[in-house]
């Protein structure tokens, strides 16, 4: 067996220290993703540092926003009255994901960092650049369905599977990070993930022992919030396409627009050009069509993924229509 150590420190210092001790250590939150991947032989950490006793399990009020602790469970976050009232798009995105059992276990940080559902990534018998850098990509030329059409490279076309992160992307979330030296910094979610390029195994801008302690949500800039998810069955399925919209209308014009997408990108996708096009404009079908064209201008429609372009177009239009009605 691959032996691994397990630590459950009571303070962040000890956690970061533990992590620094081994290049193959990993933090563990709910374990709903990491443990599965360990069983499949996809991930093989030699040390698990449990983050559940570090005191990051509450949602704190900030001046005008909130800071969601890294280990707040997805179900608790979705149920929180503050979130439901001011950031309903986040509640809805969370509830559209996984199953009740998984949400009871899954943590905020773990959800942001969950790995792709590309089936070839999960199959250790085939090449995968994300799993084994430089080995090739079995998905290219294979069966594509839950893969990305935006941000892809010739080295990887895997989509980021999270629903929660899509809503957070539209809410200008900031990830709070504690580094190995005990310094805390924040990083906008729009800057947090990396496109695969030729290093698809490096998914974020985190440094090795960086610990996510929470996620800050600033006051919502729009009170019209919509989350919509298209999937292969009514529940318990990842998004084929999803969209989160946060919008504000004033005197018949769109005063603020932040739109993010799931199932389309190698990361929870937000395109400033789409937001810019919408901002200041009057809602109209033509405008929404145009937004779709802008979003998908550089979409790579590999075989099997052609359906995502028209689908994304239609979903975007429906979401914008709903948010501006």
């Amino acid at each position, binding site marked *: *067996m*691959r032996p691994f150590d397990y630590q459950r420190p009571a303070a962040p210092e000890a956690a970061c220290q533990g992590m620094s001790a081994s290049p193959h250590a990993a933090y563990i939150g709910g374990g709903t993703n990491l443990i599965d991947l360990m*069983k*499949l*032989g996809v991930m093989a950490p030699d040390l698990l540092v449990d983050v559940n006793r570090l005191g990051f399990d509450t949602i704190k009020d900030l001046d005008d926003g909130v800071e969601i602790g890294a280990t707040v469970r997805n179900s608790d976050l979705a149920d929180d009255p503050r979130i439901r009232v001011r950031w309903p798009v986040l509640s809805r995105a969370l509830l559209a994901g996984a199953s009740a059992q998984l949400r009871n276990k899954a943590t905020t940080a773990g959800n942001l960092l969950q790995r792709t*559902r590309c*089936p*070839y990534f999960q*199959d*250790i*018998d*085939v090449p995968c650049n994300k799993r084994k850098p430089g080995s090739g990509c079995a998905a290219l*030329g*294979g*069966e594509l*369905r839950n893969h990305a059409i935006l941000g892809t490279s010739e080295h990887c076309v895997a989509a980021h599977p999270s629903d929660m992160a899509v809503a957070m992307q539209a809410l200008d979330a900031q990830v709070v990070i504690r580094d190995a030296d005990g310094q805390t910094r924040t990083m906008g979610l729009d800057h947090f993930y990396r496109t695969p390029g030729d290093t698809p195994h490096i998914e974020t801008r985190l440094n090795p022992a960086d610990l996510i302690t929470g996620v800050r949500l600033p006051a919502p800039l729009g009170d019209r919030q919509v989350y919509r998810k*298209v*999937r*292969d*069955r*009514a*529940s*318990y*399925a*990842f998004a084929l*396409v999803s969209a989160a919209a946060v919008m504000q209308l004033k005197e018949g014009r769109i005063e603020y627009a932040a739109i993010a997408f799931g199932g389309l990108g190698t990361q929870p996708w937000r395109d400033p050009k789409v937001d810019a096009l919408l901002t200041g404009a009057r809602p109209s079908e033509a405008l929404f069509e145009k937004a779709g064209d802008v979003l998908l201008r550089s979409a790579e429609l590999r075989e099997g993924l052609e359906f995502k372009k028209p*689908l994304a177009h*239609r*979903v975007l*239009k*429906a979401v914008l229509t709903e948010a501006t009605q």
Partner: protein
Amino acid sequence: MTIDYQIDDPENANLPHPNGHGPLGADMERRDGRDKVTGAARYAAEHAPDGLLHGVLKRASGMGTVCLTNVQEVEALAGVRLVLQDERMIRNAAQGTAGEAPVQGVDTADYIGQPVALVVADSSEIARDAANLLKVQSVGDDLPVLPKHGETDPDMQENSVTGKPQDAFDKAPVLVDATYTTPSLTSAAMEPHAAVAEWDGDRLTLYGSLQMLRYNRAELADCLGIEPDQVRLRAPFVGGGFGSKLGISADCVAAALAARALGRPVRVVQHRRQVFEVNTRRSETRQRIRLASHSDGRLTAIGHEGRVSNLPGEEFAEPLLQASYFNYAAPHRLLRSEMVRLNRPAAGSVRAPGAAVGVTAFEIAMDELAQKTDVDPVELRLRNLPDKEPGNGRPFSSHRLADCLTEGRDRFGWSDRAAQPRQRREGEWWIGTGMAAAVRVNLVMDAEARVRLTPEGRAVVETDMTDIGTGSYTILGQIAAEALGLTVADVDVTLGDTDLPPGSGSGGSVGAASTGTAVWLACAEIRRDIAARMGRKPEDLELEGGDVIVGNDRRPLMDLLSGETLSGHGKLAPGEALEKVRQATWGAVFAEVAVNDITGEARVRRMQGTFAIGRVLNQRTARSQAQGGMVWGLGLALTEAMVHDARDGHVVNRDLAEYNVPVHADVPYLDVCLLDDQDE
């Protein structure tokens, strides 16, 4: 003594009949339900004899000759006991009722995912990791994995022509000519396949997750090169099978061999991902259906031509055409099916083999005909029902399709629907309705059972029959209670053990009729004994409430037994009746479906199913079976598909997150109506 009974005639008049107010047919909860939900029921993998070792199957990641390149290294790992590659190991599961070994020898891989070795260790974690570390090389030519590349097997053709179908198609006033494809499907039973094997000298006991023990025992013995009576199989609880556990699978043989080699009990549980590739799948199909009719929808000719696939050498062909021989009347008929040989995981029986995809495609074509002729879909079916089996004139033992269609139509409220598409909309959703007839051949199989009546007045039913979640424990108890005038609580039922008389096993929907009849026969023998003790004829006897009644004479059964146990053995054989009459079960299913105008997502809003399935032994378990069938129908139509990689055929979506069986949110209210029908 044994009561031997062969069903040679459609009428089985000389058997005792239930009196109608006993426990038979009641709405009864499953007797094992509580044990199952509380965890008291122990499934195969939960048996842990002392000294148990753990085996994990290693899969082939390529096809061709297999070479394990680092066996010594893996065997040297701490806790690893053995890397087993034995010529008796099997490449894929045995087909249902095979009774003999499937292809053996795992030094060649016929498909990707095939087991090629077993790694045995002190814990399942060690074994799993060691199996991951074991390196497998396979050398061989590219083999066909896509239907368009596979070769047609001339020995596996079905070809039946009645009249002049081609003429009829050419001259038809109305013709539907449509081609449908369906993907590979899998059984997706909840419990993964598992075996715990233990030897005592040269006798093997194996706890398995199996549907048909009498055949499984012969299959396993044949694999191991021993006699069937050296093998004892036990499967008291089985967490669903849906065809995938009809025949033994790789876990059984590997566990038995490893346990023998190591002199310790060995457990092998298939990983969920292996369940998807080691056990049989339903073949993908292509079906061309032609319907020629008069302008009023009356059929003049039907054509059903199919293509299915399987591994070279496998004799199972998805029986696509099974129902098309008798579903609708038409003088001219063309029924053809061909098999292409592909190196994908073996195909076999999955949830209503043949009918599930064959009837579905045919019924879709009927809808196209309804559209073309502007005849109501229910009416169209009613117009085309045969009064005898088409082609050969064989009578139907019972034919209740018309009743199912009309009863279902009324219960569903079919006449209120908008007959044309795109008539009803709610928000973004288009609401439509549809219906299909359901037809399935009916079989009975050899079955035996023993019943003992103890001096305390309790009955004990014993057979190797399995309960795969269907309710065998419950209905066999009901049957014995009915026959002996007892309450179900007075009857103990012991199943799933090859030391007991061989039942039919669970598969092909034969279990209740076959093993149930064997139990009834065993009870009839006991009744005969009782009658003899009273100096009466069995038919004068009434058993009720633990009493024996003959005319005015009523006495407690226990008095009559005076300390003795009475025993009966029932033995059923199918006989000639199956040839003399066409037996089938009938149904009609109606659905209201919403399709999202923006996304194309389809969600079922309600379903109604009306079925004539013969005598209902237990309202609740029968209803549950019908509902399960409707859920699988929903999955077949909307959510399920096994994805094969087009380059090498391997199954890409090998878990329950990616293979989409319907979840609760997909399943709406399912109204089930069981027509009371006694198909003698």
